[in-house]
Structure formats: C-alpha cells, structure tokens
C-alpha cells in the first residue's frame, strides 16, 4: 500500500475515534452528574462559537456586515433565511468594498 493510502486509512480511523470517543467515555457512567450535564448542554454553543469568532475577527467590513445581518435575521427567521441573507449581503458588500 502507498504512503498516501496509509495516511488516509489512519486519518479515517483517528477521525472515527473522535466521533465515537466521547460517547464511549460518557456511557461508562450510570449516572451523569448535573454539572456534567450542564457542560454537555453547553457543547453546541461552545464549539460552534470557536468556528466563527476567530474567522470574524480576522475578516473585514464585508464579512462583518454579512454576520450582523445574518445574526439579526436569525432572531426572527429560520436557518435557511438567515444563511441566504448573510450570503447575499456578503456578495454585495464584496462587490462594493472588494
């Protein structure tokens, strides 16, 4: 097998381990402490924020405008409306400010 193939196989195993690992650890406990449960409930906001914040900080006015509009739309509309509004603002703003 070529080196590339080995890398792909090892990477896929490593990735699957991350996707099942947290469950394998948590499922060993019969009872989940309220504090652990509070931590688990915070996971979506905690992880997803880290995928936005640094990207937003190193972006420019066009991207900020898109994020602000998308954020406002998400207060009222659904995910698709928010996404389309943000994308539209981004494309328009980039035509203007480059």
């Amino acid at each position: 097998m070529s080196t590339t193939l080995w890398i792909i196989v090892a990477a896929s195993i490593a990735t699957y381990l991350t996707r099942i690992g947290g469950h394998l650890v948590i499922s060993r406990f019969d009872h989940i402490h309220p504090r652990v449960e509070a931590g688990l409930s915070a996971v979506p906001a905690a992880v997803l924020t880290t995928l936005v914040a640094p990207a937003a900080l190193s972006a420019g006015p066009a991207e900020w405008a898109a994020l602000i509009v998308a954020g406002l739309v998400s207060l009222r509309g659904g995910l698709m409306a928010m996404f389309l509004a943000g994308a539209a603002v981004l494309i328009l703003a980039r035509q203007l400010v480059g």
Partner: protein
Amino acid sequence: MSAEAISENSAKSDFWDGVRLSMPVVVASAPFALLFGALAVDNGFSVLEAFLMSATVFGGASQMVGIELFGQHVAPWLIVLSIFAVNFRHVLYSAGIGRRIAHWPLIQQAIGYFVLTDPQFAMAERKAEAGETVGFTWYMGLGLPVYVFWVIESALGAMFGKLIPDTHVLGIDFLLPIYFLGLVMSFRKRPLWLPVVIASAAASIIAYKTVGSPWHVSIGALAGVLLAVILPPRHSGVETRP
C-alpha cells in the same frame, strides 16, 4: 389506511424532513468539497485518493489541513496527528449526542457516529431540545445528502479543479462562518448561552493568536464547557429539566 402504511409514511416524511434541513449544509459545503478535490490533486493526490479521503474521513477542515501538510512533505504520522487535532471537537459532540441516540440498535449508532459532523450534531441537538425524538431515519435524511454530495463534489473538484472560478468574489470562502453563526444563534434559548458564547469566543481568539490553529477550536470549546460545569447548577437549569 393500515397501521403499517401509516408508519411507513411517517418514516418517509421523517426522512424528507431531514433532507430539507440538509440543503443549506449541502450548499455551504459544496465549494469546500470542490476546493478540497482541486487542492488534493495540486498537492500530489490522485483523483481516487481524493475521493477515498472524502469518503472515509468526511471532515472538511481536517482534510484541507491534511492535504496542505502532505504537499509540504510533512512526516505521515504528523499529518495524521494534525487531522486528529482538527477533528478533536467531535469528542465533545459524541459525548453530547450519546444520550439522544442511545435507543438505536448498535449498528445504527455506529453509522450515526460516522456522519457526526458540526451541522449534524447541531441539528440533532435542536431536535432533541424541541422535545422530539432523534430517529435514525430523520438523522440519515439529514446526513446522507451531505455525505453523498461531499464525496461526489470532492471527486469532481479533483477532476476539474482547474476550472474553479474566483472564490473570493462569490463569497464562498466565508459561507461556513455565516452558517455556523446561524447554528450558534439557534441555541440562544439554552441556559447560560451568552456566558458560554462569550467565554468560548474569547478563549478561541486568544488561543488562535497564541497557540495557533487548529487547537483554538478545542481550547475555546473547553473554556465554554468548563464555565457551564463550574457555575452553580441553578444557573444552568439542569435540575428543572424534566
């Protein structure tokens, strides 16, 4: 209508509910799949290898990092370790989602964890939060289109990568942060949402500037989760949950 036909119909509509939710994800990830394919070939992968990596790893950011390091002739074990680091956030996802899908047969769980991406986790959590059962049919209705398009578009990118237009003008390099912001916002009714978001944002930015990518994701995420663990349970609302 017989009971069987009714349950078959509801399974069908569950599946299509999931498919509908998958559409923004398919749109937002398409440019990255094409880009990955193109970069993979640029960095010395064959079309088949690009296809294989997308089909078995199925993690956009980690694949980009892997291919970049491969092009720079970094040692193979370091490439794999870097991919592991980028994907490490999934440990938190699988810890969180286990309680939602524990009622599935084991083989379905094994498949479910394989397609556990960022949007997959977020959508499943939203459904559970709405008090609905996270069923395998719905879950795969969401996950399957994302997977199939990801793999096919990776191969297309690998074959026709030279034809990709200017991604900056079309804004596609910033579609994912917009989409992820929408997902963050959709959890705003949860207890401690704002403090968690602030803690994770601050920690991830500081880590990004100091430790560097990709560790800023895991460090930022842990900061938010730890804050929720440390604050007294009466703030996190767990005891009042049914």
